[in-house]
């Protein structure tokens, strides 16, 4: 999540906006009356709300300014997943790519957190959980010969992708989610947002952990003892 006031420059811009907005109110108050000034203030508030919530949504977000892709023969994939990191479907999708040094993987695991904990920077637990899942997948991929690295990202997955893509010149983005209806990320249009934000091919991998666990249990039950 991006804080709108992250620097002195943002604060200065905000100061100017406040001054510009209050200037017509002040003028009307001096020239006419307090009532007219309050009417102008009300009009400005309505105008701002319309601008923020109606007009702004029609504008597509600007494309992220990313690190240019390298033309060295390697195919670089940025994989974004959290709870589905342990899913077999994701593992199969990655393993289906040609192994070896030709494919470089960067796994990003957003540290999912509550809003309250995010704003108070209380994210140790969320990061530790994400780290544990990430290490499991990385170890598995490395055993299969993949050049794989990973990191913990922002709790907003699109922001986490952007952070990672600033350093990793990916050729493709792979997003792993729970099935539709159970995925919070899909509920928040992660695929559409990623495609709007990044000028890269986006692959969606659906991981049904419940079905995979059920299948694993039935295999254990069916196997001879």
């Amino acid at each position, binding site marked *: 999540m991006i804080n709108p006031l992250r620097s002195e420059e943002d604060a200065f811009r905000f100061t100017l906006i406040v001054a510009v907005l209050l200037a017509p109110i002040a003028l009307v108050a001096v020239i006419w009356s307090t009532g007219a000034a309050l009417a102008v203030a009300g009009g400005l508030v309505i105008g701002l709300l319309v601008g923020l919530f109606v007009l702004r949504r029609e504008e597509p977000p600007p494309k992220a300014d990313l690190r240019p892709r390298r033309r060295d023969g390697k195919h670089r994939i940025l994989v974004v997943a959290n709870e589905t990191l342990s899913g077999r479907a994701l593992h199969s999708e990655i393993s289906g790519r040609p192994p070896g040094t030709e494919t470089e993987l960067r796994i990003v695991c957003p540290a999912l957190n509550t809003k309250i904990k995010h704003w108070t920077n209380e994210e140790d637990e969320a990061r530790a959980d994400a780290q544990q899942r990430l290490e499991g997948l990385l170890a598995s991929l490395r055993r299969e010969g993949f050049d794989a690295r990973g990191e913990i990202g922002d709790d907003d997955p699109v922001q986490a992708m952007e952070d990672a893509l600033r*350093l990793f010149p990916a050729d493709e983005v792979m997003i792993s989610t729970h099935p539709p209806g159970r995925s919070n990320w899909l509920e928040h249009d992660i695929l559409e947002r990623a495609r709007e934000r990044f000028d890269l091919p986006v692959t969606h991998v659906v991981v049904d952990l419940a079905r995979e666990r059920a299948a694993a249990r039935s295999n254990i039950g069916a196997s001879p003892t």
Partner: protein
Amino acid sequence: MESASIAHAAHAAHPPEAHQSSRVDSRLLGVLLFIISEAMLFGSFFTAYFFVRVVQGVDWPPEPFEFPVLIASMNTAILLVSSGTVHWALHSIKKGNRLGLQVGLVVTFLLGVMFLVTQVNEYFKAGFSIEDGAFASVFYGLTGLHGAHVFVGLTLLAIMNIRTARGHFSPESHMGVEAAGIYWHFVDIMWIIVWSTVYLL
């Protein structure tokens, strides 16, 4: 489980690194939280103002008193310019221009002093004291609270001026000026709101 506990211990010893683009630096977060608490303090004073003026329907200002709108407007201009100069100071040090930083901070400090002196002078010439009814209490309370914040801002600016004179700050390291600048802009915004509501409306 072991890796989780290791990661947890490492984070407990050192806060997680600020991310490339999304995280707020912990020092900056402290400044922002402080400013949020200050905004709440102003909010309580504004509540008193609206209660007196809207709920109780007190004339603002009651006859025969008058607010020095022109002087207050000049003070507004002074503070707005000082926001520009502190921004210029920070912009200068980001580009390695130490002279720009020094001049910007000194000018900002002088403008702040000018504001405070003008306000104190206004108090002496106002023609009413804090004991002259609810309107006077609210007027002196709000403008006095803001004046106290200007004083705190001036103290920060004085420290930044001293540090700059001692050769502190560089294009890579200027958090002190950044934090003081954000605080100064906050003081400026609060004044614009005080000026609009108390003097103009």
